[in-house]
C-alpha cells in the first residue's frame, strides 16, 4: 500500500493551490459580481459558474489528496459514488416544485383590490365583519344540504 511509505504527494503544493484558489474566489466575488461588481458586471451564470468551478476544484483537491482518494481502492470509491447521483436526483426533483413553480404565489391570504391596495382576504369573509358564521352563511347560501 502506497501510504505506508508516506503521503505519496507534496502537501504544500496542494495547500498553495487551495490558498490561491480561495483568494481568487474572493477577488472574483468582489470584482465580477453580477450586479455590484467593482470591475465588470458579469451575467449571473458566468459569475456563479466561475465560483462553482473554483469551489469544485478546491473540493476535489481536498478529496483527492488530503483524503487521499487518489490512492484509494475501488471499494472506497464505491461507497461514495452513489451520493453525487442521489444529490442530483434530489435537486432535479425539487427544482420544478420549489424553484420554478409558476403556481407559487404570495403573499398568501391577501388579495389585491382594483386599486392595487392590499386587502386582507379574511376581512371580507370574517365572521365578525359581516358575513355571519360559517354555518349561518351556509344556510343563507341556500341549501342543497
Amino acid at each position, binding site marked *: 500500500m502506497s501510504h505506508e511509505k508516506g503521503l505519496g504527494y507534496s502537501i504544500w503544493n496542494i495547500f498553495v493551490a487551495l490558498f490561491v484558489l480561495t483568494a481568487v474566489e474572493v477577488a472574483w466575488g468582489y470584482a465580477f459580481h453580477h450586479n455590484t461588481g467593482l470591475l465588470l458586471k458579469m451575467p449571473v451564470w458566468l459569475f456563479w459558474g466561475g465560483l462553482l468551478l473554483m469551489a469544485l476544484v478546491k473540493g476535489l483537491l481536498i478529496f483527492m489528496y488530503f483524503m487521499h482518494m487518489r490512492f484509494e481502492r475501488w471499494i472506497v470509491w464505491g461507497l461514495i459514488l452513489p451520493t453525487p447521483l442521489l444529490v442530483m436526483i434530489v435537486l432535479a426533483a425539487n427544482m420544478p416544485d420549489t424553484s420554478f413553480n409558476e*403556481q407559487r*404565489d404570495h403573499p*398568501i391570504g391577501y388579495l389585491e383590490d382594483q386599486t392595487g391596495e392590499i386587502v386582507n382576504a379574511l376581512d*371580507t*369573509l370574517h365572521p365578525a365583519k359581516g358575513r355571519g358564521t360559517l354555518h349561518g352563511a*351556509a344556510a343563507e347560501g*341556500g341549501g342543497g344540504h
Partner: protein
Amino acid sequence: MMRLIAFLLLIAVPILGVYTFVNAQEHNWWFPPAYSTFAPDIDWLFNFIMYMVAFTFIVTEVALAWFVWQYSAKRNDKGVFTHGSHKLEMIWTAIPAVALLVIAFTQMETFAKIKFASGFPTDGPYTREKPIAEVWASQFDWRFRYPGDDGVLGTVDDLESSFEFVVPVGVNVVFHLRARDVIHSWFVPEFRLKQDALPGHTIPVWFQATKEGSYDLVCAELCGWGHYKMAGRVRVVSAQEFDAYMAELKAKWFSNGKE
C-alpha cells in the same frame, strides 16, 4: 391435517378475493356514480389495471395454494434439486415487463388531460387564466369567490359564498384552488377529481360535470382535528339556473356586505 387447512386458507384468498370484488358492486361498496367527463376514463383505467392484476393475482395465488398442497404430501424421497432456470427467469421477466409498460403508457393520456397545463380547456367560457371562481380552503370550511361582473378575481366586486359551490353543467369549469392556512384537498368522489390545496400556491383545476345534482365536496388531506367534518357541496345546475344563482348571490352580497 395442516396440509388441508393451509391449502384451504390459501385457495380461499383468490376465491373470496374475487368474490368480494364482484359482490362489492351489489352492496354499493363500489365506485360512486361517475359524473364528470373524465370520470369514466379513470374508471376504465382502474378496471383495466384491475383485470390485468386480477389475472396475475389468481394465477399466482392458485399456484401457491396448489404447490403447497401438492408438495407437502408426505413422501420419503428428496425434493427436486434445481437452482433455477435461466429460461424461466427470462420469461417471467419479459412478460411482466411488457405488461407493466403497457399499463404505464395507457395512463399517460388521461393524466395529461386532467393535470397538464396543455390539457386544460381553452375554448369554453373558462380557462386557466380566466377561472370561474377561486376556491379557498381553510380550517375547516370551503369558500368560493366568483369574479363578479368585471370577470377579474381579486377586485372589489367579487362575490363570495361558502359551503356550496355552484357550477354549470356540461361546461368546462376551471377554478383556482388556494389554501389559507394548511394543506387541504379538493375531492369530489363523483367527479373522480382530487387536488391538494397548497398554501402559497394557486393551483388551476378543471372538470366538466355531466349531471345536475348536489355532490359532497370532501377534504381529503389531513388538515387538523376537524378534517373529518370539512364538508362542502358542489351543486351542478343548468346554465339558466347558474345565471340566476349569480344574480341572487350578487344581490345578497351587496345588500348586506360592505357596500
